[in-house]
């Protein structure tokens, strides 16, 4: 179809060479208006306002001198670099388990999704209560079997942070396992049969068939999970509340802490400090997903 035909025939709905807008395109703009308004009012304006609040160099000096901020930054890095990698390795392993064709594994996979399907509050509070040093079921069992008092789980910052990472893993492991399962299921069964004929071991099948097929997916998932985990407020806040002595904060809970202390400029500055970590990840993900 040539350009001249396109310009003369106005019923053709699209084409880059049309100089003026056709009716469908006008409708297109109209239909984009709701989202554009939402975006301007609740994304552009808050971000601009937030950056404007974070403009004072004094805020950054204050953050630099606040030991809680340094601790939160370190905690966030531990959460991301150690927590997420452990989670993704387990998810990769379990995705191999859940694609096995067994009736009971199908049932188990229905149960396994439960942490992701239910809201975080009740289950995190349940875990928090299980870890209570006096009445929690964990320490009661320890007492029953060893006669010793169990540790005061949430009162030791290192243990408490580990527990928060555990809560995060508990909550989001099913989701990532599910995603990696779809990746594994997309691999042609012929490849495994050929590998079996060649006498490949379990490990060799994984190393030379599964891994090359899922490695990009795995990397995408890891990065995406890191971005989202930066905003994981619940796992830390609801389990430890940032305590003991504000030693288990991560950046997302710290921002809210400053907000509650009415130090809005510090809250925004602490978020801006996370941007060098966030923006490269976001840029990479946008490159991958917007193709």
């Amino acid at each position, binding site marked *: 179809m040539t350009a001249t035909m396109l310009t003369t025939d106005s019923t053709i709905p699209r084409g880059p060479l049309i100089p003026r807008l056709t009716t469908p395109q006008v409708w297109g703009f109209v239909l984009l208006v709701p989202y554009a308004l939402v975006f301007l009012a609740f994304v552009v304006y808050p971000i601009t306002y937030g950056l404007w609040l974070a403009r004072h160099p004094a805020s950054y000096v204050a953050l630099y001198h606040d030991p809680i901020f340094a601790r939160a930054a370190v905690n966030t890095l531990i959460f991301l670099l150690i927590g997420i990698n452990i989670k993704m390795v387990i998810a990769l392993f379990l995705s191999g388990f859940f694609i096995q064709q067994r009736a009971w594994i199908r049932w188990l996979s229905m149960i396994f999704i439960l942490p992701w399907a239910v809201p975080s509050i009740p289950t995190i509070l349940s875990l928090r209560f299980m870890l209570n040093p006096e009445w929690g079921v964990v320490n009661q069992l320890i007492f029953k079997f060893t006669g010793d008092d169990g540790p005061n789980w949430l009162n030791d910052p290192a243990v408490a942070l580990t527990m928060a990472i555990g809560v995060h893993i508990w909550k989001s492991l099913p989701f990532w396992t599910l995603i990696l399962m*779809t990746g594994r299921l997309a691999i042609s069964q012929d490849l495994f049969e050929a590998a079996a004929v060649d006498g490949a071991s379990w490990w060799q099948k994984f190393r030379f068939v599964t891994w090359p097929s899922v490695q990009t997916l795995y990397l995408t998932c890891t990065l995406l999970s890191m971005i989202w985990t930066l905003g994981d407020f619940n796992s830390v806040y609801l389990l430890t509340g940032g305590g003991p002595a504000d030693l288990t904060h991560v950046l997302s809970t710290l921002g809210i802490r400053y907000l509650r202390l009415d130090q809005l400029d510090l809250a925004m500055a602490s978020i801006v400090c996370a941007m060098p970590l966030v923006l490269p990840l976001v840029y990479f993900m946008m490159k991958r997903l917007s193709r």
Partner: protein
Amino acid sequence: MKFPTWREVGTEARLLLIGIPVFIWTMVPVYNLFLFSISPKEEAFAGKLWPDHPTLHNFAIVFKQQHYFLRDFWMQFWNSVVIAVAVGVLTLVVATSAAFAISRLRVPGGRMVMNLALFTYFIPAAFLAVPMYRTMGVYGLLNNHWSLILAMMTIASPYAIWVLKQASDKLPLELDEAAVMDGASTLQLFRLVYLPLMMPSLVAIGTYALLLAWNEYLYAFLLLSNDTELTLPVALGNFLAADDSPWELLMTTGFIYALPPAAIYYVFRRYMVGGLTAGAVKS
């Protein structure tokens, strides 16, 4: 009947060796929640695997609002329902029209809107919470349900648009062309061709937005503060602030609160898994 070989038994045993820990790991917090909600107050702390006298008394207290912390239970439950449904519906309206415009009408600049939406999707929600709180203050919406509805819609829309765009890109262009040939207007195309074909994705996205709003704690806790305006998760969080919290009632309320999303998830699982995982990671 064929007896399994040793090799098969070995494989099965190894699978069980993974399956049983996975089962325990998944169920322990959920079971603990359930256990507390059916235990009488004095037995709740005994550390037993099943209470000697299981009871529904806790549920009765919650449903009849017979405790100081629970005096607004039904109001808060209703608030959660209204907000979740409103977010689900509004997200669908906004995202479907945007996806239709970008994917089917190929509106100029649609790609840029898509990228901006994706960018929003990647901003961690907790980071946007602080400026969002102030923004809602500026708009005068704090302590108003609309603040939470609009905030949750903002958070749900980018992913919704993206998934719906991916799904609509898969519909053949010939469909639109045939409809236009038959004299369909753009709106008829949208209503009679596009919406019916997109139904599975729309169900998935509506459910996604609804569950996101129902489950949200942080924004609800920042944006709403009057006792009668709260949603259930914030009310649950407030339990925690008190020293003399009645834990068995907290757990019972939590259990009731967790049931609807779990039920919805399992009912729509077919749509959710297909619609959402396909969109979640395109490798």
